[in-house]
């Protein structure tokens, strides 16, 4: 252990601990900005400088490991003056239109200014010296360089968590900036729209593209029937933007709030998540049958899940030769969209041209997905507007809703029912678990051999998870699987997806079925979720997801009554012609670099 003194208090910590972390042990807060718990140390912003006795300069507490006998002072005049200067400098290069900014009151720079740099500004406004533009090209997010303070969190996120590096630090000196490849519009570079950068941007430099006004317009249009669906991960995180602690489930209140906002039908993406399991599970079993029993060499194994639009764009760019391995199933959002303007419209006797289909997603990539040209199988744009969890929170506030005191209510019927299997789609491993719960039962006629249906080997926060399920006692149709060991893998965060894909490319992957989610932790850690994010927060959201699952009466997708009904009344059976028309899609190879 290393012993040191911070503000004259003694503390003993493990070697390698930073001064910042040691201070935390003593409950001494040191302000930070470029530092982020998910990312490597940068030491760039210098907000966290502290004084070390005997040192010539101040030291960055986030980047300096403790040494024996070190004497640190976090609140001397020298430190305060430097800190104030640094925050003032950041403000001077930042376009401070705070009252109009989407990140107003959610901006980390603003909070620092509030603590250290209130009152008269010292320095010149540097923004007019630069020729800044706002990149609105992506349907998912916007990049406003005039608000960028060069903390490089976004760059580290894109590299360390996502293995994409769509953005990098470019130029030097006063021209230094965060840039895409040669300043191309974000819509024209290798970017997955995952929004993890948005989640970690401390200011308003990277924000989702909002469609709040368009949604309000639709709601106020008496001609329109506005349908809303909410993704599984939204209900376990929305509360964070409305004053709740991470991990609080607010499903019922959210449904009530959506009605109060004025949505005409409040439905659940969980319904189409269950539908996805039916389609994808059937697809998997069909592939396995063709590959293993019929010896069809054209069939590609492993099959990859296709729910995560960030992952889809990743594989389209980086591993296009494996597009045939992707399940052809649309994501639950898009299955829902296709059905809202067909099945739902018919059932409700509404002219589909009058339906405005809105989804609330933990995701920014879903905005891009909804804009894909192939997502029009209803004859209309299947999903009109995608809102993030954060945008929904804004709308709830705009509507003046006293969220905390709302009564809970249930989703509408028809495409409103869900099961626990659908809920867990929001967590890494959830799609796999849901698929196994159903597929195993189809094949063997028995429930998966796990206590309470909880397939724990596929759960948890490890970047890449592997599991093997031995299939025994098959029903007659599935005898070819008797004794087979179904090998599955799960990855979350594209850096981990890349690890799996590298092995798949090398031909050393033993898997039959692979679940991949673009975001750390799965959808609960999505780019549209409340800010901040961290491993702790993501774990709490995941606990909430599993607890939501355990509280459901139905926990297997094939038991969802709305799903049973739609096959009976409309789709026939899984992977039927009608299902293929509406619920399946194809993919596009894109440039790799």
């Amino acid at each position, binding site marked *: 252990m290393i012993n040191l003194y911070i503000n004259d208090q003694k503390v003993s910590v493990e070697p390698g601990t930073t001064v910042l972390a040691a201070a935390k042990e003593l409950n001494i807060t040191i302000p930070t900005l470029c530092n982020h718990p998910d990312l490597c*140390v*940068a*030491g*760039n*912003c*210098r*907000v966290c*400088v502290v004084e070390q006795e005997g040192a*010539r*300069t*101040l030291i*960055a507490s986030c*980047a*300096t*490991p403790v040494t024996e006998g070190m004497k640190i002072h976090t609140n001397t005049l*020298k430190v305060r*003056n*430097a800190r104030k*200067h*640094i925050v003032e*400098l*950041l403000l*001077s*290069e930042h376009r401070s239109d705070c009252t109009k900014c989407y990140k107003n009151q959610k901006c980390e720079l603003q909070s620092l200014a509030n603590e250290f740099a209130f009152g008269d500004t*010292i*320095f*010149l406004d*540097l923004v007019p*010296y630069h020729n800044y533009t706002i990149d609105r090209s992506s349907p998912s997010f916007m990049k406003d360089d005039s608000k960028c*303070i*060069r903390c*490089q969190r976004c760059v580290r996120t894109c590299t360390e968590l996502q293995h994409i590096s769509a953005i990098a*630090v470019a*130029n*030097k*000196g*006063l*021209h*230094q900036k965060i840039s895409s490849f040669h300043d191309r519009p974000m819509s024209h570079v290798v970017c997955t729209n995952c929004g993890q950068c948005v989640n970690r941007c401390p200011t308003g430099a990277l924000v989702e593209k909002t469609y709040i006004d368009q949604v309000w317009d639709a709601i106020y249009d008496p001609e329109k029937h506005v349908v809303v669906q909410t993704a599984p991960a939204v209900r376990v995180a929305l509360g964070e933007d409305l004053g709740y602690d991470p991990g609080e489930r607010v499903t019922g209140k959210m449904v009530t709030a959506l009605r109060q906002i004025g949505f005409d039908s409040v439905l659940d993406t969980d319904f189409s998540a269950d539908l996805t399991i039916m389609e994808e599970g059937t697809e998997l079993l069909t592939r396995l049958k063709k590959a293993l029993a019929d010896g069809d060499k054209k069939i590609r194994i492993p099959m990859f899940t296709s729910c995560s639009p960030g992952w889809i764009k990743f594989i389209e760019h980086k591993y296009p030769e494996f597009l045939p391995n992707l399940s052809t199933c649309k994501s639950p959002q898009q299955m829902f969209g296709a059905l809202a303007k067909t099945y739902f419209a018919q059932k409700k006797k509404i002219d589909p041209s009058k339906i405005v289909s809105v989804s609330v997603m933990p995701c920014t990539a879903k905005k891009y997905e909804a804009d894909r040209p192939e997502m029009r199988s209803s004859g209309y744009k299947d999903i009109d507007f995608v809102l993030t969890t954060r945008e929904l929170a804004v709308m709830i506030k705009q509507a003046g809703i006293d969220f905390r005191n709302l009564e809970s209510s249930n989703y509408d019927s028809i495409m409103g029912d869900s099961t626990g299997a659908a809920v867990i789609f929001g967590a890494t491993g959830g799609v796999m678990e849901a698929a196994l719960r159903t597929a195993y039962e189809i094949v063997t006629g028995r429930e998966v051999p796990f206590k309470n249906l909880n397939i724990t080997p596929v759960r948890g926060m490890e970047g890449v998870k592997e599991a093997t399920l031995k299939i025994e006692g098959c029903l007659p149709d599935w005898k070819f699987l008797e004794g087979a060991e179904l090998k599955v893998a799960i990855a979350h965060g594209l850096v981990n997806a890349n690890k799996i894909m590298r092995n798949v490319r090398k031909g050393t992957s033993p898997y039959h079925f692979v679940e991949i989610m673009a975001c750390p932790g799965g959808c609960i850690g999505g780019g549209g979720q409340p800010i901040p994010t961290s491993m702790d927060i993501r774990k709490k959201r995941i606990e909430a997801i599993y607890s939501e699952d355990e509280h459901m009466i139905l926990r297997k997708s094939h038991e969802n009554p709305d799903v049973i009904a739609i096959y009976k009344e409309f789709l026939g059976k899984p992977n039927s012609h009608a299902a293929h028309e509406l619920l399946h899609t194809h993919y596009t190879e894109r440039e790799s670099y």
Partner: protein
Amino acid sequence: MTNNKELTKVDLIFEKVEAKQVLKKAFEMTSEEIIRQVLESGLKGRGGAGFPTGLKWKYTAAEKDPEKYIVCNADEGEPGTFKDREILDRVAYKVYGGMVIAASAIGAKKGIVYLRGEYRFLLPKLLLELEQFHKMIKEIGYDFRINYCLGSGAYICGEESALFESIQGERGEPRNKPPYPTSSGVFFKPTSINNVETLVTAMMIVHHGPETYNRLGTKDSRGSKVFSVSGDTPTPGIFELELGMTVQQFVNEFGDGDTKAVQVGGASGFCVPRKKFASTIIGFEGVPTGGSMKLFNSSRSMYNVLHNYLEFFEEESCGQCTPCRVGCQQLLKGVEKVKKGEMKSTYLNELIKLADTMKIASKCGLGQSVGNAFRSIVENFREEIIY
């Protein structure tokens, strides 16, 4: 009265020596012996920062990793220095010689010369000389190879950790320290990085013995040093001088009779005004320098000098840390506004405070030293800045 030495010209760096003999001698010496001699000589890094060379080698030698590097910093970018180019041009074999000696001291088998892109025209010749050199040391029995890495126009790459990043194919952004290069340098391996002149000096110390070198200079600034003299002087060029003289003595030798200020140490160094010439020693006890000596006569506007330096820093800051990236822009735009009368002259006081913050809060030596020139010019020539 100052405790200074007379201005004395020395011929050590460019002195012709039989390299093979010196290196044979070094080959017979143990690592400890080489380090002891360099420590005894009192040699401090000649790039400007002035870290004791022997100590640097000692720390690197103590590292257990079998893969170590000796890196020659030939990214001479400080405005006003050109001595390393001259040294490489005239006595490259002595630079290589210094690298072999350093490599024996620290236990490295690989050497890298990082040559600034501006000096690329020298490369063909340097590589020819290197080829001969490799043959020669092989004959002696050394197991050591030198490679060249070229810069591409970035002042900051002279900062050691930025230089490593550049060798590794990255943007030349300085790293957080610790860890220091001696434990984690290029390719994150223990590395001794030394300036061109330092390496030549080390070879000459082995050649002449540490006492000869130690006898030169003062207590804090041992030995001699190559100075790059430019500006308003009738005799611009390269001069090797014993350390310890005052700025006055220097001006007496090199001035044009009308010298009003000397910028010692380049844009990141200090401006010494006429009234302080006699009381300022050039060296670690006074104003340290990597060799850049610029003379300004009374026809020059010190506002223009400062403006030129600030423009330089604004562009050459790597841009990663706030105090340096934004601070440089503020200092430049600030003095422009004061000059134009758009800001009160008292704003200079705010800017001096900012320069002080940059000195203590910046990530690397660049940002930390911008304040040197700023403060010394603004404080000594305030009127010229304002009016």
